[in-house]
């Protein structure tokens, strides 16, 4: 009995210790976060203004704003989404609804997407440079940058959409089939609507990833900081602008800080919308019975 009591005590201590360690870790993470955000906000808030958002950069970015850079970023993003969305969602629908996980084709597609998801962005940059810029002759352009990004986004879009479709209860498929409904109707009328919040959340996630990307764009979309006139012009994305200002422009730290704040604000907004959607989706699943 005394043995048991002392063990019990030891367990209480262990429990306390674990709690302390876990809370400490959480505190460290919070502190790091506060430090980073504090630094960034302190460095850039004073420089933010409406003019900064719409003006062209001057003097290598030390002066002026980021207007053309925002436009280029948006164009790159649009190109990437237009290419990746149909492909990604079609693949997800196929994987989730039509091919079984252990069929050869399904396995091949899934495996290659899994590999694709792990490919470092700089390798996408190399590929984009060799394939889109040089082999297909698009040069340094928003188009080749956007298409390179599309390759990067594909796995994210597929996996989120596939997960969303798989989360739709099997009972919907079974009962639809038992009612003699075709697979296409089932997919478009029941499954995709049921998975819509997941599709949207994945889309936003992809947008966030695309906006943040730097390495894949260095050698594909180039870094001309002027207002793009067409998709075949080179355009500098916001992330590359930050990179350039911080690495190559002495005295560029302040506009870099301000650009970082803009980038983070955009991402924060996207993140929040995505979270709302995911929450709605999860809530939708928790309808009683």
């Amino acid at each position, binding site marked *: 009995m005394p043995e048991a009591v002392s063990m019990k005590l030891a367990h*209480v201590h262990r*429990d306390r210790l*674990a*709690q302390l*360690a*876990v809370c400490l*870790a*959480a505190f460290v*993470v919070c502190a*790091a*976060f506060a*430090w*980073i955000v504090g*630094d*960034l906000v302190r*460095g850039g808030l004073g420089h933010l203004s409406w003019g900064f958002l719409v003006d062209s950069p001057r003097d290598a970015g030390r002066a002026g704003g980021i207007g053309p850079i925002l436009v280029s970023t948006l164009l790159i993003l649009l190109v990437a989404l237009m290419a990746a969305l149909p*492909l*990604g969602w079609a*693949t997800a*629908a*196929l994987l989730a609804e039509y091919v079984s996980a252990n069929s050869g*084709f399904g396995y091949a*597609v899934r*495996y*290659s*997407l899994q*590999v*694709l998801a*792990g*490919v*470092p*962005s*700089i*390798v*996408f*940059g*190399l*590929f984009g440079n*060799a394939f889109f810029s040089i*082999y297909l002759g698009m040069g340094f352009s928003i188009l080749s940058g956007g298409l390179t990004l599309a390759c990067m986004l*594909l796995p994210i879009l597929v996996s989120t959409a596939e997960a969303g479709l798989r989360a739709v209860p099997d009972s919907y498929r079974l009962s639809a089939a038992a009612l003699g409904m*075709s697979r*296409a109707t089932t*997919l478009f009328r029941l499954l995709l609507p049921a998975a819509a919040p997941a599709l949207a959340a994945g889309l936003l996630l992809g947008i*966030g990833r695309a906006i*943040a*990307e*730097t*390495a894949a764009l*260095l*050698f594909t979309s180039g870094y001309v900081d002027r207002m793009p006139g067409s998709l075949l012009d080179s355009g500098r994305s916001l*992330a590359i602008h*930050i*990179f350039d200002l*911080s*690495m190559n422009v002495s005295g560029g730290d302040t506009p870099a800080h301000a650009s970082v704040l803009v*980038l983070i604000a955009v*991402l924060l907004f996207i*993140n929040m919308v995505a*979270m709302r959607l995911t929450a709605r989706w999860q809530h939708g699943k928790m309808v009683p019975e």
Partner: protein
Amino acid sequence: MDKLILRLLCGGAGIAATLVLLILLFLAVESWPALRHIPAGRFLTDPSWSPGENMYNLAPMLSGTLYAAGGALLVAAPLGIASALFVAYYAPPRVAGIYRRLIELLAGIPSVVYGFWGLTTLVPLINQLHPPGASLLAGILVLTLMILPTIALTAHAALLAVPAEYLRGAAALGMSRWGMIRGVALPTARPGIVAGIMLAAGRAIGETMAVLMVTGNVVRHADSLFDPVRTLAANIALEMAYAMNDHRAALFVSGLTLMLMVMALSGVAGWLARNRHA
């Protein structure tokens, strides 16, 4: 109608699947000149990386990549798992929600921002400690910040997937919180957590911009945490802009190496997952 849609979907998926092959193909084609001129062994035995003098030793960059990624994993894995436990089991619901949101935010911050912050804050700080500041340590810290959210979020997802019945069952048996976590939750969630760590390892190995900005990029085996290093990915970003001929091909070889490393990693992850099912 059904047939047509199936065919369309197959077409889409086919393109998606061929993409990996296309990437591998282009990497291989572009690396070919180097692989043909330069015996494979020389990528590890040349005296240094100095393409101007026809020397192509990738070994210091391999070591730099592994040190940086390994170090970051060593720091980020405990912190990340602890964060996940904090959200799942320790924090009150409101705090947990806020903390999770914070982690998601950290996950969304672009690598170039971490690099920028490292460059303007971390490097000068380390420089005071031990010049030059731009060092392996800075790289590890910045990478830690970047992969910690990945680990925390995947671990949290894995913990969430632990059926509530297990936890209820454990609580009903009078088990303490830590006993429940160690005895039931962590073993059940382990495959998910390991997969998350693998994912994070892949990211750490392939991360370019942030590392490029803070590690000094000197091609040399690091002897201490304060030595500068160059990673494979940073090497590409740094030199790709103006590399030509064999030099360019050698950079594609480093890209290919990166890609193979990541594929091996995902292979190991897949193998672990399968073994568990068996």
